[in-house]
């Protein structure tokens, strides 16, 4: 079995990044103008990278599928962004953020990357404030913080319940400035459909103009993929409708390793599913767990009465409530990491204590907080989230507890990258959720924004130069080359093939079927048997899709069904790889919970001797089993131990 080299610099942990920056190769200003970089995605990672590379003087081509860069799904993050500023004087430090992140990720992330992330976290806040991001402030005028899951310090910066949006608008404004200056050229409503390699290096992409349906070619010296995660494999997730894994998947098919695909995060606080027509799940920020208390009825009879609509939650007495997170995890209480909170909710519901009409919900109760802080304070903190809940569910969360249930939210897995965020294809970089890097097997709340912006503002603009410094002699490529012909033809063939199936089923109906199989077998509780079942089911769905999907309209015009079909074709294959990876990883860690591997009290049981590695999957061909490569994880600065949120 091959062992993969992460190109982590030598030296002490805290010196690695400084060392790297001191010795890396740079590109002089005159040469920067001659170098083109394609950035796919305009979210926190993509938008920040495109803007920063533009500022440096590179010639950037930036792509997004939405009508504007400001719509990228990074903006849906509500609660906040972590940074080791220690403004609260509560004992935070770079090391502690690093430690919390590694531990939160259940010891499956690369030490050096995570330390770098913690190191630059403070710069992100400085940068965003300078851009005019209106973070929440104290009366004294300084920045306010809140606490988030998996941490015992308050290091989360926030802007109402719209932190992601504000950070994205910051990146978007920086990007807009570069577009105005002409260093960045924006291609909105363009979807990347393939990666073009020339002599083994990433040199361009094929994209479909979503308005005209035209297939277009773009060449560059390097390509950055920042297209987010693949959570929508599950159909129902907190991702946006358009979020997809296709760009990353094309890179995988061109030779980029796909790492830890089975690490998907289930977010504990989402509005529960309410009907089969449902198109997506709405997240309720983790910040709610700061003041909200999670409970289910202590007695099964009460739970049954609630489900039948005979008993109201407000009628259940305090002593008849089971605050199960506080009971099981006294030290962290309602602020345990997401994977732990999600599993605990599932455990209670499976045991018959669930509420809501389906029994697949638990309460998130603010009555204590309202009594303690007053309605006004609660409203100031969470008003917009409460409003969102009320509009969706038609219940007033100030008066009756919210109902929540876990849902797929984020994928820690993604394209494998080395320390430089370069994939296994030279010249192809991956940033943000699209790469696998920093969160291990479970991401802590408010860390996605941090990682996206760290990659985009402070890591990639450096590391990509180290690569591009060797490319200054390479002239611009013409897109008339045969490599582009081949790629474009393949894309056209695929589109024609899909259009010509003319079957009976809509894309969504098949996607829902895939989602159900994924949720049942590759969701919160996985078993060897279930995963095998999933692989068989997914193969069946794949056959059904390629023989019975119906796409009205033509391929050479705007066609929303075709867009969905192209994405679903990849989701099916991603789902398959997720199941395969989950089957292979015979341990429980973070978001990956194999029911065979748990401690006596139901906690995840890692097998560090066998699985302390990054599982990197290499594509070997259509319908062929992919090859598994391993990047061993060495922990030099942290003692690997069983995660403990109890004491």
């Amino acid at each position, binding site marked *: 079995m091959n062992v993969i080299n992460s190109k982590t610099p030598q030296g002490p942990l805290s010196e690695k990044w400084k060392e790297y920056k001191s010795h890396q190769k740079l590109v002089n200003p005159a040469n920067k103008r001659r170098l083109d970089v394609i950035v796919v995605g305009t979210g926190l990672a993509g938008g920040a990278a495109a803007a920063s590379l533009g500022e440096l003087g590179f010639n950037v081509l930036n792509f997004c599928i939405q009508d504007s860069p400001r719509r990228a799904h990074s903006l849906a993050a509500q609660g906040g962004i972590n940074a080791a500023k220690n403004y609260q004087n509560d004992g935070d430090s770079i090391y502690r953020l690093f430690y919390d992140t590694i531990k939160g990720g259940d010891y499956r992330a690369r030490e050096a990357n995570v330390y770098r992330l913690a190191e630059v976290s403070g710069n992100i806040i400085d940068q965003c404030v*300078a851009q005019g991001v209106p973070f929440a402030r104290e009366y004294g005028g300084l920045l306010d913080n809140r606490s988030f899951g998996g941490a015992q310090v308050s290091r989360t910066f926030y802007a109402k319940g719209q932190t992601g949006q504000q950070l994205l608008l910051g990146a978007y404004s920086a990007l807009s400035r570069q577009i105005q200056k002409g260093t960045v050229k924006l291609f909105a409503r363009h979807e990347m459909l393939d990666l073009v390699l020339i002599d083994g290096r990433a040199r361009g992409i094929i994209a479909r103009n979503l308005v005209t349906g035209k297939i277009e070619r773009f060449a560059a010296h390097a390509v950055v993929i920042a297209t987010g995660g693949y959570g929508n494999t599950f159909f129902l997730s907190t991702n946006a*409708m358009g979020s997809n894994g296709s760009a990353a998947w094309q890179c995988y098919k061109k030779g980029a390793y796909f790492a830890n695909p089975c690490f998907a995060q289930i977010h504990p606080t989402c509005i529960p599913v309410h009907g089969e027509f449902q198109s997506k799940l709405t997240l309720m920020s983790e910040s709610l767990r700061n003041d909200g208390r999670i409970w289910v009825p202590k007695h099964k009879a009460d739970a049954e009465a609630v489900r039948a609509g005979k008993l109201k939650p407000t009628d259940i007495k305090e002593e008849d409530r089971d605050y199960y997170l506080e009971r099981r995890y006294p030290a962290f209480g309602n602020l345990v990491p997401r994977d732990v909170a999600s599993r605990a909710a599932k455990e209670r519901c499976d045991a018959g204590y669930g509420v809501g009409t389906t029994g697949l919900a638990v309460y998130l109760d603010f009555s204590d907080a309202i009594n303690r802080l007053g309605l006004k304070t609660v409203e100031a903190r969470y008003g917009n989230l409460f409003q969102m809940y009320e509009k969706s569910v038609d219940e007033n969360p100030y008066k009756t507890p919210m109902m929540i249930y876990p849902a797929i939210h984020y994928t820690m897995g993604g394209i494998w990258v080395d320390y430089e965020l370069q994939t296994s294809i030279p010249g192809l970089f991956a940033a943000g959720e699209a790469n696998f890097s920093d969160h291990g097997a479970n991401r802590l709340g408010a860390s996605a924004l941090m990682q996206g912006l760290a990659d985009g503002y402070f890591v990639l603009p450096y590391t990509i130069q180290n690569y591009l410094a060797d490319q200054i002699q390479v002239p611009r490529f013409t897109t008339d080359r045969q490599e582009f012909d081949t790629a474009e033809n393949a894309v056209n063939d695929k589109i024609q093939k899909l259009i010509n199936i003319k079957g009976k089923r809509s894309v969504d109906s098949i996607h829902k079927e895939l989602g159900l199989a994924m949720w049942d077998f590759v969701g919160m509780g996985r078993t060897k048997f279930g995963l095998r079942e999933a692989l068989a089911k997914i193969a069946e769905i794949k056959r059904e899709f390629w023989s019975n999907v119906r796409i009205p309209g033509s391929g050479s015009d705007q066609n929303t069904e075709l867009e969905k079909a192209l994405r679903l074709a990849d989701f099916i294959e991603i789902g398959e790889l997720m199941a395969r990876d989950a089957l292979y990883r015979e341990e429980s860690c973070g978001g990956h919970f194999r029911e065979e591997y748990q401690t006596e009290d139901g906690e995840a049981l890692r097998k560090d001797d066998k699985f302390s590695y990054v599982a990197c999957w290499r594509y070997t061909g259509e319908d062929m089993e992919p090859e598994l490569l391993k990047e061993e994880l060495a922990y030099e600065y942290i003692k690997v131990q069983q995660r403990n949120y109890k004491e």
Partner: protein
Amino acid sequence: MEKTINITLKVWKQRNPKSQGAFETYTLNNISIDSSFLEMLDILNEQLINEGKEPVVFDHDCREGICGMCSLFINGRPHGPDDDVTTCQLHMRKFHDGETITVEPWRSAAFPVIRDLMVDRNAFDKIIQAGGYVSVNTGGVPDANAIPIPKDKADAAMDAASCIGCGACVAACKNGSAMLFVSAKVSQLALLPQGRIETAKRAKAMIAKMDELGFGNCTNTGACEAECPKNVSISNIARLNREFLFAKLKD
């Protein structure tokens, strides 16, 4: 158990920006009142696809009221008959059984229809590109706490910044004016010391771009504020006027 309604939909269908376009009528039965408006449109599209027809095209993405991608002028109001929501947060419980629902695209010269209910809001991006930013490069900025900002100022900036760029203000305005959108950005940055420095330049550049792109003139009707899903206030427009006039008078 689950309450359902039957509805008639009158939906604007338009093949491309140049074609004429017309309403088409569909009937939908047994729509759960707990489904969102866009989920109802999903059901319509599923029905159309099963009949071998092309689905109705509309913009949508996050479906939780924050991305600003969804639009739709429903029964005479942008984002439909509920207050303070985007179309994706509008639920069918706001309609009654047997109701005829008219769905139109945003109509404004600056937002041409691309297809059916999908419009081109690129003009908003161009306005931001004209000056909706603080001119700082990545790196080399002072510590985040170096400049204290009064809480009320920061909160007011946040309120202005909650604009999601959906375009409901333009759609609602009888003049097709983008002043609420422009003023939200100018206000946000004018209220913060970081953005204050460039305020005059920004206000002038953004207004010039707004005028150039063919948006109308604000006549202070307040329809934008009434229909804004994020409650952005027209007091921001007053601030923009102030900043713009001061800037021009100084020149």
